[in-house]
């Protein structure tokens, strides 16, 4: 049996890191303020006390070098977990991730691998404005040689880290900042899968495809739609690279309609790839074009009402579905 207990996303992630540190001496956590400060989002609180400064390692403000050092440490036989405070700052380290971590195995003819996990917060919704609110998961999902994960539930927050650490290649793990305080039921033996998307709610009329911070919105929209007699299936993508196309294609082949919810700016976001994939592989199953609900193409503004207007919201998802169903919202 698999007894449940309630836990927050933040605590689930901390438990996952703690377990990894206990389970494998090669694992260590490195990043800005992960130690004495307790982690910007308090995820690593208490770990320094338990594991000491060698394995819970505070770094200077040097994203390029400490991410690169994580790559080097992985090459050298360690299993680093590198925390980049938020995806916005990861741009400073992108060269090391794209040009080095993602290329090394292929470029070396298979001789060297980089078993590294990079964790970062992502997303908007807390009025942090234009330099702290990006959703760039789609960029990472474009890069061959890395795996990209977006745990959206406490079970995935708890269960995806260990298999990510065991992955012989670089894994980038995105934690939507709005999820940390969410609570959920955690099974005693959480699922450890970093290959597949999940059907979070079954339905027959339309497929809502979401991940990370957008999943709760998709589920809320599904509720609202149910009250209007529309049965929405909700797919949690979970793995942004490589894409588990089978799962969302099967859903679309069944429902014949799809709406992708993506907090990234619409043009060139991951939602476009999903729409294109669906068209390529399920064109003749579609009753209507795949719809996308994404962020407005604007640097996220500070003012609350403007930020809300810039981000995907439940009413837009519902509206997009109603339009697909040929009924106006």
């Amino acid at each position, binding site marked *: 049996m698999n007894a449940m207990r309630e836990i927050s996303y933040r605590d689930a992630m901390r438990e996952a890191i703690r377990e990894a540190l206990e389970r494998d001496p090669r694992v260590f956590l490195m990043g*800005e303020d992960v130690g*004495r400060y307790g982690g910007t989002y308090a995820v690593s609180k208490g770990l320094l006390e338990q594991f000491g400064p060698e394995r819970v390692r*505070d770094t*200077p403000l040097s994203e390029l070098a400490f991410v690169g050092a994580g790559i080097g440490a992985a090459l050298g036989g360690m299993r680093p977990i590198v925390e980049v405070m938020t995806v916005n700052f990861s741009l400073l380290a992108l060269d090391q991730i794209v040009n080095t971590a993602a290329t090394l195995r292929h470029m070396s003819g298979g001789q060297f691998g980089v078993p590294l996990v990079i964790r970062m917060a992502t997303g908007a919704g807390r*009025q*942090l404005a*234009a330099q702290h609110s990006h959703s760039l998961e789609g960029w990472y999902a474009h890069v061959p040689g890395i795996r990209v994960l977006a745990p959206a539930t406490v079970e995935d927050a708890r269960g995806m880290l260990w298999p990510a650490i065991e992955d012989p290649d670089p894994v980038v793990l995105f934690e939507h900042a709005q999820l940390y305080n969410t609570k959920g039921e955690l099974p005693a033996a959480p699922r450890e899968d970093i290959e597949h998307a999940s059907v979070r709610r079954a339905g027959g009329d339309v497929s809502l495809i979401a991940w990370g911070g957008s999943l709760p919105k998709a589920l809320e929209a599904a509720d609202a739609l149910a009250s209007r007699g529309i049965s929405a299936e909700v797919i949690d993508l979970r793995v942004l690279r490589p894409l588990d196309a089978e799962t969302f294609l099967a859903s679309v082949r069944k429902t014949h309609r799809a709406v992708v919810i993506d907090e990234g700016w619409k043009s060139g976001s991951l939602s476009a790839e999903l729409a294109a994939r669906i068209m390529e592989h399920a064109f003749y199953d579609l009753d209507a074009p795949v719809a996308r609900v994404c962020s407005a193409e604007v640097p996220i503004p*500070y*003012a609350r009402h*403007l930020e809300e207007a810039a981000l995907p919201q439940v009413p837009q998802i519902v509206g997009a579905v109603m339009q697909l169903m040929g009924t106006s919202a």
Partner: protein
Amino acid sequence: MIAAPPSGPVPYAREFALGLLADMLRIRRLEERCAQLYGEMKIRGFLHLYIGEEAVAAGAMRALAPEDSVVATYREHGHALLRGVSMNAILAEMYGRREGCSRGRGGSMHLFDASTRFFGGHAIVGAGLPLAVGLALASRMLGEGRVTACFFGEGAIAEGAFHESMNLAALWKLPVAFFCENNLYAMGTALARSESQTDLCVKAAAFGMPAMRADGMDVVAAHEAAKRAVAKVREGAGPVFVEFQTYRFRAHSMFDPELYRDKAEVQRWKARGPIHTFSARLKAQGMLTEEQFAEIDRQAMEEVRRAVEFAEAGTPEPVADLLLDVCARR
């Protein structure tokens, strides 16, 4: 080891000296109110208070000329205010109102004002430095003789942006005053845990750049250092680096539980507080009475009161204008 509180005679005319005091009090009272307003959820997002560090902005801003340029960080309320941005526009910005100095789009971390050449308000640590180098390059190429003052924390020194920018400025002998506010911590990371070389002037000197250190809790020392630095930069000999040794009395941001430093340390630094030590010196010199202090303070609080009124009365940017100013209006 923490030095003794700033002391000794204040070498300024009374009016100027009281001006410095008023500057610091305006920042202090504004930010104390901001902290309350954050609790009332009138201000949201990240809020980084400058309380304890006021002498640096007060001393430095009065060393600059109106035609100069200023680049700052997310801890920039004081810099914007003393550069001449109205308290009304600053507070309205934190309220997210269109009357804010960034139309409510920037918030606390992104104050901007073209009329005072206040170029922000940057929340990527170290990102202001290349910008300052470019502003100085433009001034040089246009023959404008502006000095660009770039404020940043000691935490930024570990970033590649610091290294690359210092080198460019020194190599091209650009008119930049690099004002480093060393408050000993970058969030929870003490300087000694982020720099192999904790003498920041030594680091600056490695670029062949003149470097000086000043007590950032002493508005006199801060102003004298800034004056020397700005004068040197204006001569055209190239950039200058100044380390202001200061301390943040409050948490890094409103989310910071302050696990990384003990209360005693904070208390010792508060004993060096820039406002009470400076006013004590002014009183000792007979430049200031308790009544006069109270009056200056009352004016600061009155300005804050009016700013809150202004912000409360502010209007939200219409949602229809969400996409306005993403690109230039045509």
